[in-house]
């Protein structure tokens, strides 16, 4: 709709401000980080190209690679807890909320979504207090349902700290999958469910054979969003465990590893170039996840026109 011959200045005016800010402070830094990962630098700040040396160093140096693989593996576990706990619970809550004629659906929705809005930092502290053996709230609660023997300082133990943190994260973010799934359940036409009911299907059969297949694309979307979120998560573990992700790095994930590599910790100095390398590796992990999503998941999960 641009009048021929005249240069469309208005398009430039509309595009330019956003383009500049985005390019300068998001796109360029991302690219620059990738470039920087191929450089080394000395204390004076001089930089030179080193090829894949940084990557080789991160992936093969005894200490660095141990840290990296540990963080990657922990991150993977962190993600798997989300997939295995968050998606099913989110699905159940959404399925219940979307039931026809449910009273108070709006209040449930509003309340269950609440934790999602709070800062991860705040949530981390809140749970730290709740789970603290010092305060004893959890102990008392478990006692009241006769399970006090199971109580432990979960956040403090190497064996359970990561799982506990992942569950806290699930607790906080369950609102998002719940809402996305809820929305896609509501999008299923009422008549379709009526038809299945007329065909004699029970509520459970309608859920498994009609609703679930139709919302699979949403579950895929939720999973990839969770993946991206998890693989650059940082705040929760930093708030609860600090940069060292204790005990003994058992809760370290890539975000924290990146932070330490960049800024240094205890005796080791930080390095911008090595930090870039770790960031680039994180980028590759996320990219791989997104590719898997697009090439495998999305191709298989057909979105049906409802």
């Amino acid at each position, binding site marked *: 709709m641009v009048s021929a011959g005249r240069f469309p200045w208005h398009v430039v005016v509309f595009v330019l401000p956003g383009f500049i800010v985005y390019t300068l402070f998001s796109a360029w830094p991302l690219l620059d980080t990738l470039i920087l990962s191929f450089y080394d630098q000395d204390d004076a700040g001089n930089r030179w190209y080193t090829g894949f040396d940084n990557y080789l160093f991160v992936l093969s140096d005894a200490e660095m690679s141990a840290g990296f693989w540990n963080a990657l593996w922990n991150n993977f576990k962190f993600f798997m807890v989300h997939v295995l706990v968050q998606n099913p619970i989110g699905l159940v809550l959404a399925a219940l909320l979307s039931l026809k004629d449910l009273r108070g659906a709006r209040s449930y929705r509003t309340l269950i979504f609440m934790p999602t809005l709070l800062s991860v930092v705040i949530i981390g502290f809140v749970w730290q207090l709740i789970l603290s053996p010092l305060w004893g709230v959890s102990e008392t609660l478990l006692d009241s349902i006769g399970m006090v023997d199971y109580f432990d300082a979960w956040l403090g133990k190497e064996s359970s700290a990561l799982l506990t943190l992942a569950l806290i994260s699930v607790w906080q973010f369950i609102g998002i999958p719940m809402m996305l799934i809820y929305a896609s359940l509501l999008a299923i036409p009422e008549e379709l469910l009526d038809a299945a009911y*007329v065909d004699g299907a029970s509520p459970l059969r309608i859920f498994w054979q009609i609703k679930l297949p*139709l919302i699979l694309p949403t579950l895929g979307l939720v999973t990839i969003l969770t993946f991206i979120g998890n693989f650059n998560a940082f705040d929760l573990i930093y708030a609860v465990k600090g940069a060292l992700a204790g005990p003994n790095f058992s809760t370290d994930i890539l975000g924290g590893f990146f932070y330490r590599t960049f800024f240094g910790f205890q005796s080791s100095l930080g390095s911008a170039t090595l930090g870039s390398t770790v960031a680039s590796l994180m980028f590759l992990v996320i990219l791989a996840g997104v590719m898997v999503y697009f090439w495998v998941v999305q191709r298989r999960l057909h979105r049906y026109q409802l």
Partner: protein
Amino acid sequence: MAALTLRGVRKVFGEIEVLHGIDLDVDDGELVVFVGPSGCGKSTLLRVVAGLEKLDGGELKIGAEVVNDLSPRERGIAMVFQSYALYPHMSVYKNMAFGLKIDGMSSVQMEQRIRETARTLQLDELLDRKPGQLSGGQRQRVAIGRAIVRDPRVFLFDEPLSNLDAALRVKMRIEISRLQKSLKTTTVYVTHDQVEAMTLADKIVVLNAGKVEQVGSPMDLYHRPANTFVAGFIGSPAMNLISCDVTRLDGEVAELRVGGSRVGEVPRMGFLAGDSVTLGVRPEHLSMAATEGLALSGTLEALERLGDITYLYLSLADGSQITVAEQGDRVLDIGELVSVYAAQDDLHLFDEAGQAMRDQ
């Protein structure tokens, strides 16, 4: 196959009663059409019959069995929805098999039934397709096939043709009629389209505001509407309903006037001088050519020439408007004074409550 009996069927949504005690008998093998303006409760009534909405009062019988508390499957009904409601992730075959599988039918028998049904509906080629790959008409046929394959006692259709274009609608209408005649399954069909109602129905149920206004064969409703609502609803263009005063009684006849001018005499049907009555006459029963019977004259306000038929819009002495359908192409000047006549047999009279008055 079975008859369907409704006795005092009531339905309430929250505070609002949408069905006020419906009584109805549908004979075995009959095709009954529920028709009425939107919001009249016709779809709700169908959903009550289906078992998708529970009854809040009254009794619903299929055959001899009271089915108030039975699920749709236990009632033995099958339904075709307005949006077709095909399962988008299943092939046509699986769509048709879904209910049969729940019924516990063996796969051999199922396959045979589905293929058979597919043949009658010319769906053979489409069995492996998903609904998304079908045209509107094909989807419609699949929806019908999914209902037929269940071999139900009662078929329910909820405005099934409203999503099709005009040409396809006529075609499918004929096909549904043919199918129902050959299957002889008791059928309830909901529509807001009176042409569909007239052409398909053995019996039409006219609903208005949650009540049955009249039940009867299509021609019954056309020739003997029970009240002004049915009179105005059945027939297109709608029947002219003219308020008249009974000015003089003369033995067996009564004289009617509209806004002071005499329009003619009608048989006296127990009314008194000074009564107000509503005179009903269909546009196609008014004619400029005739010279006797009831006469109405008015100024020509507008003219629509369709070639085979010409519609005249006249404004009468009291300002009310009437429509006249003249056969053939007529040319007249706007503003001209036109007189039209109607035969006695084609007149309908309604009392002040809108109920038809009949010769005694």
